[in-house]
Each structure stands twice: as structure tokens, then as C-alpha cells.
């Protein structure tokens, strides 16, 4: 079975895989930063009492969660130009990942804030804190700790989702594997190699999760 497996060709294509890996990493970082920004705004809107803010946020989150990311990506890349908005594929790719992940991040942050016991808020009110002070000094620092692990989980999902950008001619990691598969007709070599690289990224993010847990002194993380 393995006698036909060509390690030589993989080595030959390593520079291409390296470039793809670098592209995947930096576009994922940018997209996740965007997702955090979008998620914080959406979560804040979603936690307001007024329907004026809550309704659009809920509608957006539902719309994103109900449609496949591929459809969203194709809409932005092939659909928007028909409406006169033409963006380079890297921009479209990062935007699509941010808009998509942002909806999931919003839900994670909302859940984190809601997980803080009501008594904390009441204690803040009793000590005469304003809404902003309560948020800044009491709620958010605690919510932040709770949301770190699920946020890193979402970051892992985003890295894997970025593989879809290969479909709009972004030269990321999956595209490198596709090139090897189609140039030399070696799908096994191409796709096993990218799987190994994605695994590396996954363990990198998991390591980061463990480290952040230790820094933040999460229960059970410190030995």
C-alpha cells in the first residue's frame, strides 16, 4: 500500500506547503480578530433590554448560523460584484470568515456574560457602581475567563474553515495540497500532508488554550 507513496514529491513541494501554512496562519489571525470585534458588538446589542438593538443582532446571528459558510463565501465573492462591489479574494476570504465566526463568537460571549451570577451585579449596584463600572470591573473580567476555552475552540473551527478559501483562488494550505494532487495526480500525498499541517495548527492552538488557562489561573489548569 505504501510502496506507491511518494515522500520525495512531498519534500519537493514543502516550500509550497510552507507558504500555504503561513498564509493560513496570518489570514486566520486577522479573521479571528475581526470575529472578536463583531462578536463583542453583537453580544452587547443582544444583551440590551431594548428590542431595537436585540432584533437586528438576533436576525444576523440566525442568518449566519442557518446558511453554509460556502454559500456565504460564494455570495461575497461571486454575488457582490454583480451589485458593483469588487474586492480582492483575500479580503473577501477574511471578511467571510470574520462575519461567519463573529456570529458564533457573539453567542459565546453572551453566554459567558450571562453565566456571571446575578448577585455580582447586585453587589455592584449596592456599592454604587455605574453600569460601565460594573461591566468593566466586575462582569467582564470574570466572563472573559469563562469564554477563553470556547473561544479557542471557535478559533480552531475558523482555521479549518479557512480551507474553503482555496475555492476562490487563495493560495493557502489546502490549495497547496490540491496543487500537488492535480499536478502530479497524487491526492494521497497532497491531502495527507495538509492534514498533518492542520493537526500541527490544532495542537498549537490547544497548547495556547492550556497556557492561557494557566495565566488566567483557571480552576484545574494550575498544578
Amino acid at each position, binding site marked *: 500500500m505504501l510502496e506507491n507513496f511518494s515522500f520525495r514529491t512531498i519534500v519537493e513541494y514543502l516550500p509550497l506547503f510552507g507558504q500555504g501554512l503561513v498564509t493560513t496562519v496570518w489570514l486566520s489571525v486577522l479573521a479571528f480578530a475581526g470575529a472578536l470585534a463583531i462578536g463583542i458588538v453583537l453580544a452587547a446589542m443582544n444583551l440590551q433590554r431594548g428590542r431595537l438593538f436585540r432584533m437586528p443582532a438576533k436576525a444576523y446571528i440566525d442568518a449566519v448560523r442557518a446558511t453554509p459558510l460556502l454559500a456565504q463565501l460564494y455570495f461575497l*465573492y*461571486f454575488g457582490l*460584484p*454583480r451589485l458593483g462591489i*469588487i474586492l*480582492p*479574494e483575500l479580503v473577501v476570504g477574511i471578511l467571510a470568515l470574520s462575519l461567519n465566526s463573529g456570529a458564533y463568537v457573539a453567542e459565546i460571549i453572551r453566554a459567558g456574560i450571562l453565566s456571571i451570577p446575578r448577585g455580582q451585579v447586585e453587589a455592584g449596584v449596592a456599592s454604587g457602581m455605574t453600569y460601565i463600572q460594573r461591566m468593566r470591573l466586575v462582569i467582564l473580567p470574570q466572563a472573559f475567563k469563562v469564554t477563553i476555552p470556547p473561544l479557542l475552540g471557535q478559533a480552531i473551527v475558523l482555521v479549518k474553515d479557512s480551507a474553503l478559501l*482555496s*475555492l*476562490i*483562488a487563495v493560495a493557502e494550505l489546502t*490549495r497547496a495540497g*490540491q*496543487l500537488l*494532487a*492535480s*499536478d*502530479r*495526480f497524487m*491526492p494521497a500525498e497532497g491531502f495527507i500532508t495538509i492534514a498533518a499541517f492542520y493537526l500541527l495548527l490544532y495542537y498549537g492552538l490547544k497548547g495556547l488554550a492550556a497556557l492561557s488557562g494557566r495565566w488566567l489561573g483557571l480552576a484545574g489548569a494550575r498544578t
Partner: protein
Amino acid sequence: MTIAKLFIAGLALAGLTAAASAGTLDEITKRGELRVAVQTQGPPFSLVGAAGERTGSSVELAELMAKEMGVKITFLDFDWDGLIPALLSGKADLLVADMTPTLARAMKVAFTKPYMYTGSTVFTKADGKFKSTEDCKAKGTKIAVLLGATGEKEATKAFPDADIKSYKGGGPLLLDAVNNGQADCGVNDVSAVKGQSTAYPAGSFTIMPDMLSKEPLAFATRYDEQDLLTWMNLFLDQVSLDGRLQKNLDYWVNSDDWKKDH
């Protein structure tokens, strides 16, 4: 009596070994089905028509093959870069597409003799600032090609200073990219470009008269299917002699006649 029995047993054994070494053609006959890998890259070679029927030049030739074999046909639809793996993994008996029998591909699959000639051409948006193949050679020009297609290799050779963008999918993606301004020039098979640009308003694209290459097209099968390959070559000889091949190409490739039916 015993001798007769032995003789019959021997005959049966011989029959069994013959069956065991049966070729692909026997298998196809027994199965009653020819399995063909295709890509839906769009007209003129392989498309899904207005009524939802799978059709096109390559598709009709494959159907003709199945008819001559006396079996039914099953099409398996793959992406371009999935065609050869599908054939090699035995999912399909043969593949029909607008595929150039390059030496690199022939290291993996067995090609029939060429049944027509085409080539890669350059096209641009009609009212854009890229008027000729020469214009596309400028540094940083964005050239849209299809991943794994011959056009990708030709473009890399012809436009060394340009930025080559490989799309995964069918030719219409390239037309879209050029039409939307996501790429300045596109490189693809001339028959495909001509066939697929009919979906746009007339005069949307400029197709350059100079060709980047002249390429044969052929069908492919596996090297362990020599019997099927021999049969396919004979089939191509026959249909080119009796005019059925020319009729197919005239309808699909050399004119827009297909447009009124599909």
C-alpha cells in the same frame, strides 16, 4: 465414463480460469453498465441543459459508446482534479472530458488517440484596458486559470511576470472572474471559452485570435484496461469514418447550434 467426467471437469476448470482473467469489457457487459467519470465544466463538452439533462459533446460521445456496447451508462460527476483519481481508484471505467493527453498525465492514465484538436486561448473583458495577449504580459496582471488544467501551465509559461490565479471548478468561474474584474485576463481552452461566453450578453469578452498552444483532446482509461482502450480507439476510428464524430463536433464545438436545444 470417468474419463468423460474428468474431461468435463477439465472444461469447467478452463472455463473458470477464463472467467477469472476476464477483461474490463466482459465486466462491463456482465454489469450491464458503463461507468463514466465527467466534470460539469460547461458547454460545449459537458453541461447540464435547461431541462436538467446531462449533455455536451463528450457526454454524447460516451453515450454513443455505451449504445455500441449495448449497456446503459452511468455518469459520475467530479471536479476536474478528481477525475483522474476517480478513474485510478476504479470508481469509473473511463473518463471523458476536454482533457489534453499530456505526458505527465499519461504517466498515470492510458489515453486514446486524439479525436479533435483545440488549444488554450486568452480572453479579456471587451471594454477593459487589456486589448491583446501582449497587454496581459505586464507585471502584476491577474490571470485567471483553472486548477490543474493545461491552461494553468500555458499561462505560467506565457505570462512569467503575471500573477496567476487558479480557480477550482469549471470554465464559467474564469469568465465570471474576468467579467467582475477580479482578474484581468483568462486562459482556457478555446472551445470552452467560446461555448461558455454565450451565457453572457453578446460582446462581453474579447477572445484573442492568437492561440497559446495547439492541443489534442482524448479520452482516458487505466493501463490495466487494455481491452477497453483498444475498443475505444476502434470506436473513435469508426465514428470518424461514418461521420458521427464530425456531426457531434459541428453541433457542439464548431457552432452554436446546441443553444437552441439545451
